[in-house]
């Protein structure tokens, strides 16, 4: 077991000192998933308090490294302590994480909603919808088939529902380990179904039936 005091913030996040904000963001998101209480990859390895301590260390590292001023101070400390060379720092990746849609870009959201409605009208597929509504069990793959028949991209669903693309992908690919907790999942399925022009009061119970059968 490695001692936590041997690790720098870069070690904690598993990144190099040249990592840019984009990589820091990605590494932190990955750690949150790995050390989540429901994560299979760390199942039984840590106690609740150990898991909490790891997440807190990761959060602290993330906050320092994502703040330009704090990171500069921290890097200065590491350089003076001889942990890294200033030459390494110069190779740093400056790319910033790029949000696919701005939360504040109301115009984009309005436009996307219009596009989705237009596609629902253009690609009116009553037989597919009837078939979906008639089923007692529905998988994520079934929802995907509706989305693809409407020629909708996941980004468009995200823009309207704010359901993260990774979650949408996990739902559509039926990757059980990556699904959010049931309380969130129910809300997501409802939103997703409505975004596809489906009746969420029929879709949600059918999806939950499917989950019961596979679990």
């Amino acid at each position, binding site marked *: 077991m490695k001692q936590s005091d041997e690790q720098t913030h870069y070690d904690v996040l*598993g990144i190099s000192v040249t990592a840019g904000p984009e990589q820091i963001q990605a590494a932190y998101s990955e750690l949150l998933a*790995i050390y989540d209480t429901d994560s299979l*990859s760390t*199942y039984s*390895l840590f*106690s609740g308090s*150990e898991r909490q301590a790891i997440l807190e260390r990761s959060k602290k590292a993330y906050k320092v490294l994502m703040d330009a001023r704090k990171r500069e101070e921290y890097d200065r400390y590491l350089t003076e302590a001889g942990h890294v060379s200033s030459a390494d720092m110069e190779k740093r990746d400056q790319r910033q994480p790029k949000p696919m849609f701005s939360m504040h870009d109301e115009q984009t959201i309005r436009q996307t909603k219009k596009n989705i409605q237009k596609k629902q009208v253009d690609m009116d597929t009553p037989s597919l919808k009837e078939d979906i509504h008639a089923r007692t069990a529905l998988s994520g793959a079934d929802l995907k088939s509706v989305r693809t028949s409407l020629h909708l991209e996941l980004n468009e669903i995200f823009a309207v529902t704010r359901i993260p693309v990774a979650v949408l992908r996990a739902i559509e690919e039926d990757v059980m*380990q990556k699904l959010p907790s049931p309380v969130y999942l129910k809300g997501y399925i409802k939103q997703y179904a409505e975004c596809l022009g489906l009746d969420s009061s029929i879709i949600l119970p059918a999806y939950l039936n499917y989950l019961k059968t*596979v679990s």
Partner: protein
Amino acid sequence: MDLDLGAPNLHTFLGVDHLEKGLDWFLGKRVNHLEQVVAPTKTPGLYFVSSANCRVEAPNLHAAQKDKIIRSIRGLDFDYVFLDLGAGTSFNMLDFFLTSHQGLFVLTSEPTAIENSFAFIKAAYFRMIKRTLTQKTFHRLTSHLDLSGNPVGQTFRILKEIRKQAPDMAEQLKQKLSAFQFLFVVNQLHKRDDPELGTKIEKVCNHHFYSGFRFLGNIRYDENVHNAVLSRQLFVTQYAHAPTADEFCKIASSFEPPPVADRPGKTGI
């Protein structure tokens, strides 16, 4: 070599029946050398030591018997020796695992299997620490510690205490632990399972343990494995063109034991 002494069945997988001679002859001193009980298999170049006829008390080998087996394995004149070990964390099992140049464990993507794997890693880690320090020193340094709780926390507390009380010993221990590499495979991966599970476990273990962890790959679930066992044939030869056989072969080719010259013993185990 089938060293799953409590439940040996490797002969069935290999389709080798009715072997008269095996490890029991060697342990019972009916032969002097382990090489005398090595039997050929249907696969060219593959030889086998069966434990099928070992006595019921065989899983509880005495330390002297275990050392005798390990010494004899090192004396075998083969390119590589694979030891098939059973599940569990008995000292004999751990010592056979740790005496190998590379130790490979297999898990499935179920919480129970993952829990057992972490328990095994913890036990192997403990065993390495104890073998490095000797029982007496270990007891002296750790007897006052609370060793309940989770594996990582326990090992952390032991190493922290040793570092506090005997820094030189801690450094020696760190080197010893760092020198060992655990290899692992995720077996019977179903379509709905997370294909990145092995990579995540590798990342977590390399982050928290001094020893190295290397994930060799996934092997997908395949009904035909069951069929191969039923027919007592090697899966990779009977279903050579199945994607699962391809994954077996890729993993086998990525698993390269160190060259003979770099190993302390004569044979690569």
